[in-house]
């Protein structure tokens, strides 16, 4: 449990952090935010960065949570706990709150950050499913300028993202909230990460589904949108049979599901279908309440 030696830098400003990232010739530099994934990997020597750039001191500039009718901006260093206790998040993005409630434990929620969750690219993290379903974009900064990338384009594969070596995730940006949202999770019993996690976001108009977004985590190399299931819902009345039929299509978008000692690929897909149906039911019920 002793990490290999590394040098440690603590950034005093975002500009300084970006400077370090752009000027470093060291390609084994790692950014330390909440440390809830990186530090355990370092202790097991699965990660052996030469330089650790600690941005934990930048919370005043990167920790803000701002939610309005028009959307939301989450600073990369917003912790799970701060998001969980934010009334705006609870009001407009209840699927986030669903997920944060079942994410890890109080200690991890106190330190883990949303930027870290996205940058780490863990295929079994909870939040990527929620953020994908909520149509989030990732805000990336480098010393010369910044860019915004749709999360769907940012996530590449297991622990692989579009983050360049000289870039820093500075925040997440969400569009206006849709009425019906829910997140459902089935835990891996040891890590408590999802064997499957599904977020459903549904809006209803004139009694039919006007828009549906379903995203799944834990089942494939990265969180993904269940496009076939989504398409099957659009324009339909949200009857039980319709929701069940949509949920049965989850596997269409997971051709090569993950398999390990905790669950086979087919079982993961099965769980994702079950959870999709449950999430859709709750999302529809919340949407119905919201539209009254």
């Amino acid at each position, binding site marked *: 449990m002793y990490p*290999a030696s590394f040098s440690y830098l603590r950034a005093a400003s975002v500009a300084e952090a970006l400077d370090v990232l752009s000027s470093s010739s060291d390609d084994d530099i790692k950014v330390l935010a909440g440390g809830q994934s990186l530090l355990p990997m370092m202790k097991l020597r699965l990660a052996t960065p030469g330089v650790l750039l600690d941005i934990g001191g930048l919370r005043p500039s990167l920790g803000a949570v701002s939610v309005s009718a028009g959307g939301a901006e989450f600073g990369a260093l917003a912790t799970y706990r701060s998001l969980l206790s934010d009334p705006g998040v609870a009001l407009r993005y209840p699927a986030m709150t669903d997920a944060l409630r079942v994410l890890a434990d109080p200690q991890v929620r106190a330190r883990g950050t949303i930027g870290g969750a996205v940058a780490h690219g863990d295929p079994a993290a909870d939040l990527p499913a929620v953020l994908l379903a909520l149509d989030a974009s990732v805000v990336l900064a480098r010393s010369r300028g910044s860019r915004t990338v749709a999360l769907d384009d940012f996530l590449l594969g297991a622990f692989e993202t579009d983050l360049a070596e000289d870039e820093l995730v500075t925040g997440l940006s969400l569009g206006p909230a849709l009425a019906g949202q829910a997140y459902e999770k*089935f835990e891996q019993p*040891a890590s408590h990460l999802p064997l499957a996690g599904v977020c459903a976001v549904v809006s209803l108009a004139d009694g039919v589904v006007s828009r549906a977004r379903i995203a799944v985590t834990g089942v494939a190399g990265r969180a993904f949108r269940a496009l076939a299931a989504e398409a099957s819902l659009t324009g339909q009345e949200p009857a039980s049979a319709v929701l069940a039929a949509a949920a049965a299509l989850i596997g269409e978008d997971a051709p090569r599901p993950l398999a390990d000692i905790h669950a086979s690929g087919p079982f993961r897909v099965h769980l994702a279908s079950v959870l999709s149906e449950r999430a859709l039911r709750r999302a529809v019920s919340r949407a119905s309440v919201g539209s009254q």
Partner: protein
Amino acid sequence: MGVALPRVEDAALLAGRGRYVDDVAEPGMLHAFVVRSPVAHGTVAGLDVSVARAAPGVAGVFTADDMRDVGALPGVRGVDGLELPLLRVAGDKVRWAGEPVVLVVADTAASAADAAELVEVDYETLPAVTSAEAAAASGAPVLHGGSGNVCFRERLTSGDAAGAFAAAAHRVRQRMVSQRVAPVALEPRGVLARVTGGGGLDVRISTQRPHDVRRWLSRMFGLPEALIRVVAGDVGGGFGAKGPLYPDQVAVIAAARLLGRPVKWIEERSESFLATTHGRDQTADLEAAVTADGRITAIRGIVHAGLGAYLTPNAASIVLRRLAPLLGQCYAIEAIDVELVGVLTNATPVGPYRGAGRPEAAYFTERLADLAALETGLDPAELRRRNFIAPDAFPYQTPTGLTYDSGDYRATLDTAMSGYREMRRWQAVARSSGRLAGVGMCCFVEPGGILPGEPDQATVTVDGSGKVTVAVGTSGHGQGHQTTFGQLAAGILGVPFADVTVVFGDTELAPFGHGTFGSRSTVVGGSAVLRACEAVLAAARRVDAPMPLAEAARLLGGLTATASADVDGETYAFGCYVCSVEVDQVTGRVRIGRLIAVDDCGVVINPLLVDGQVHGAVAQGVGQALFEQVRYDEDGQPLTASLMDYPMPSAAQVPVTESYRLETPSPANQLGVKGMGESGTIGVTPAVVNAVVDALRPFGVRHLDMPLTPEKVWTAIHEELGA
């Protein structure tokens, strides 16, 4: 006696004021790191420690060549060639992933870990085998040479099993696995060794058996016991796995002697999954002969026990002296014919783990009992009732050579019955609405109070101020020695509980004893405390006039007495556990509803501590039933070497236990007490599995192997639905 005093030891432990091995530092102390084999089976083709020796901060890098003067680890009498060596040199074989190869000692733990990466070992990998049955088959990779991997093959027979089967109206047969699990104590193993001025040893070690460690070290290092002090201090759980002495610990002690400086080693969590003994790993193919009216007359079959890569001192007796003779459990079964095969495999050695043969026996027999109930159409409770040993048959000699001291098995079942009937009514309602509900039961015995050699002692001292010190040779590591023995001594001596201090776990301060394992402390340690207290009271009577003990002690300049335990054989606690479960048909997830635990462990000194033992053991038993399994891939690589992959149950996954207690005193000791620290792991595991199988009866499921993971349960349902 019998009062539910809260544990006096907990405040300090919960507030972080415990003192474990890692809390102790010695001046000039060095830190060790163990380089372990990454391959499950192979030959060390090359070993070069020169770069590591030159690394910053390194004080020494040790191989087997440096340990030649150290004697063999305590082994098993009559089994040659299986001694576990401390370390390795080029040319040696390695037999499990995690076997110690080289020890690196440096000025900090981090520099030792860094230097360990510079140790160069070339392995020629050999095919590996981790399943006992596969390892016993011809053509399997052979670990130790000779005639193969079968370490022992014995047959336990009693009565006319063949006749019983020929006459049986029914036969039920099932292959059942009590899977390999890891004990996972909160505090991993650790040791801190220091050479004393007189050439002796001062050893702090996380152990259940400090006096036995002193004896073993005396033999291994050729030092008189008087020159060795072994201190356990606070020990954060052991569950049996801190009973043995391990090669890595002895190598650290040897390194301290070679370097002349204190050396500390603390096992890492992931390392613990590889290097600390595992439990269970038995596959049974057993058959029961059952009469038309539901009496089980015989059990026969074969049990394959995976031993891991070496035979640890207790591994054979777990199978031969516990599991097999206990197959009769609470029942008057007349005949038994069981073949017991112990097989070496390329896996972490197996050792005692909470129950050590007892849970396996109860699991196999109680699964068979449910199958017999199914076959005969009897309710599982009724089938058990028909087979119980009668209350007037005690002391009862089992056909397998055990003497059950006392028991009233019907009484525990009767106590559970109202809850059982409630659960059956709940089940009927749940089933009628399409839910998968099940009820399961387990009746069991738990032998405790083992005496492995000369009796344990206790020393009771009353000082001039009337304060009492009780020093015992059993060695608590969570059991609550301070509270139990304090309460016991206060009761016998007639002094306030607050005036009694209990000392143990230090060979200099406590009298001889074998430590704490096998549910022995209250039986053996308690008996010694009783006798020492009686001796003190007798001595106090030497004063002319009757007077309070404190006054007599003041007049006599203090009173002290040491006495040995006086016990007449082992005790057999028993119980009946009943639980209800509900299975989610679409995900296969099992949820335990109610759990009723009826325990009879004879006279109870502190009911709160008995409850605590039940709760902790229930957590571990539920863990085996639903979650835990040590797994290897086909190359013998461990797949569950961290808490991210090895699922320990959390508080949310452990049911609330409804505890009931009966008290049938043991005639085997003066206190009438029985050991019961393992009852929960024995009782709850079969109850949960029986309940899940019962829940799945609508699908025709007869048996499922543990752990009952959602996918396994879901697959069983859907295979049946698809068929």
